[in-house]
């Protein structure tokens, strides 16, 4: 019995080293831009590079659009599956898992074949319509995470009875979804949203092959041509991801009426 805490601490230490040593190594390397001393020059170069802000801004806008489309698509679907079509759950779960199995490059070639400028729906014909196509492809990529997050949230509440209670009080479907169901799965939707955000910010394949100025291709481009800046960018990306996770915690904690029932 006495040996167990020691083993637990040892495992924890091993895990921490496994995760943090590479991170610390990258951080340390990113600070060695100037020979013989540590500096933030690499960060300064990255942050003042107009392409950094442009690509990050572009990916952020697309990430937000992806989140909106994802929530609008997934929340009503998962709600309806839970409420009326529970037998279809395995089928829907299988479909939402497909983006994890099918490589992104296969999706892109499919899109290019279906929506090229000489097709019946030439979405790649202009920049705006390509952005739309890219957003849809991001929604597909994030589907496994968004669906699972929302589905878990819905399973935690009594969807059927809450729906019936709202109906008996005169609420229409839109009111039930927006004012009863959605607020009660807010934390789950936020989790899905931030996972989506993290995926979109770092995504390379689709943005690159659709030739859009996203953050992922920018990261790759810097990584292929510079020494210290990619390390700085990796640390910045890491900070953005952790900030997202922190936001989930903060917003989730502030959710009213979500404490465990007595």
């Amino acid at each position, binding site marked *: 019995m006495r040996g167990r805490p020691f083993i637990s601490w040892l495992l924890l230490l091993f895990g921490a080293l496994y995760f943090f040593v590479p991170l610390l190594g990258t951080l340390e390397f990113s600070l060695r831009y100037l020979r013989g001393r540590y500096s933030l020059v690499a960060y300064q170069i990255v942050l003042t590079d107009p392409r950094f802000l442009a690509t990050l801004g572009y990916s952020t806008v697309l990430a937000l659009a992806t989140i909106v489309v994802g929530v609008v698509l997934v929340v009503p679907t998962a709600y309806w599956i839970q409420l009326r079509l529970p037998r279809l759950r395995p089928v829907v779960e299988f479909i939402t898992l497909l983006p994890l199995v099918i490589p992104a490059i296969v999706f892109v070639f499919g899109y290019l074949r279906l929506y090229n400028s000489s097709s019946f729906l030439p979405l790649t014909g202009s920049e705006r319509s390509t952005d739309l196509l890219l957003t849809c492809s991001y929604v597909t990529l994030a589907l496994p995470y968004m669906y699972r997050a929302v589905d878990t949230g819905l399973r935690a*509440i*009594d969807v059927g*009875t*809450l729906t*019936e*209670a*709202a*109906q*008996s*009080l*005169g*609420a*229409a479907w839109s*009111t039930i979804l927006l004012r*009863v169901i959605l*607020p*009660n799965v*807010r934390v789950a939707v936020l989790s899905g949203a931030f996972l989506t955000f993290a995926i979109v910010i770092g995504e390379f394949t689709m943005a690159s092959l659709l030739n859009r100025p996203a953050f992922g291709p920018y990261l790759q481009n810097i990584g292929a041509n510079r020494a210290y800046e990619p390390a700085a960018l990796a640390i910045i990306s890491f900070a953005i991801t952790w900030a997202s996770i922190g936001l989930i915690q903060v917003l989730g904690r502030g*959710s*009213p*009426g*979500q*404490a*465990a*029932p*007595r």
Partner: protein
Amino acid sequence: MAFLEIANIQKRFAQTTAVEQVDLEVTRGEFVSFLGPSGCGKSTTLRIIAGFESPSAGVIRLDGVDITRRPPNQRHVGMVFQSYALFPNMTIAQNVGFGLKVAKKPAAEIARRVDEMLNLIKLPALGHRYPYQLSGGQQQRVALARALAIQPQVLLLDEPLSALDAKIRVSLRNEIRSIQRKLDITTIYVTHDQEEALSLSDRIAVMNEGRVEQVGTPFEIYNFPRTAFVAAFVGTLNILHGHVADPAQGKIVVDGQELMASRGLEHARMGDVCSVALRPEVVSLGEAAKDGNQMRGTVEDVNFLGSIVRIRLRLKDNVISLDTFNNPRLSLPERGQTLTVNFSPEAVLVLEAPSST
């Protein structure tokens, strides 16, 4: 004229029939309970009235209007659920005012009505709290207030006290009845608890296997059950099986002993197999007075229950249970002892065969 009319309602799911046939007319302001065991179709019938299930056949009319195919959010009926179903993301005041907000009532009217409802359920100071901060009993009172806030035409309660402990159940059921009387609202109450149904209702519809076995006042249901099921389900009951010896005189033979029934054999014929019911409290120890029934049997068991002693007396194939008040000055009968018990012919309830209802 009936305010709520349930006419020939049936509900079939893929393989099973949940509601075989239900007909009931409820007058305005009446409190009617559906009483029956699990799976008898009482909740399904209530859900059909609420609009959550659509019937396979039959019609629901409310105040003369056919609402059978009307969606639940347009029926104007209030519903209280067993699991309270309060919206966790809203405060108590927001929960109570939800229906009014959906109906786009002015904010001042919503606030006034919410205060009125919170006062009605005696929780005026808890409007700012969230449901998880309230006890089960308080949450169910809020659910009641929320259902009443929209001034529904009918209030439906689906086993609202089942999740509560015994003491709160009794106090809350009294509160429900008092609020119902105060507002004079037509109420349908579903329960499997006979005590709840007997104490709350103007009338009770006893249900079994998707059918209404008997509809009557609590007094009628308890004292004059029409079927063996109703007799057995409502209260403790002795069911004695025998045959008709003389229908004109109301004479029945049970295990070779004769007894008289004051009514119920009008349509019987000599030799018919019949069942009679006797409440334990109408059976007394000792010889019968003139014109009374008496039966002899052997004491099979004696249960001391505090203020009451329950004695089981075996006749032959039948058993009679009787309750006597505990008297410390009298000794209890011994097992195996032969005893005589008596009861009046009026206390003998001749039961209809279930199929004849």
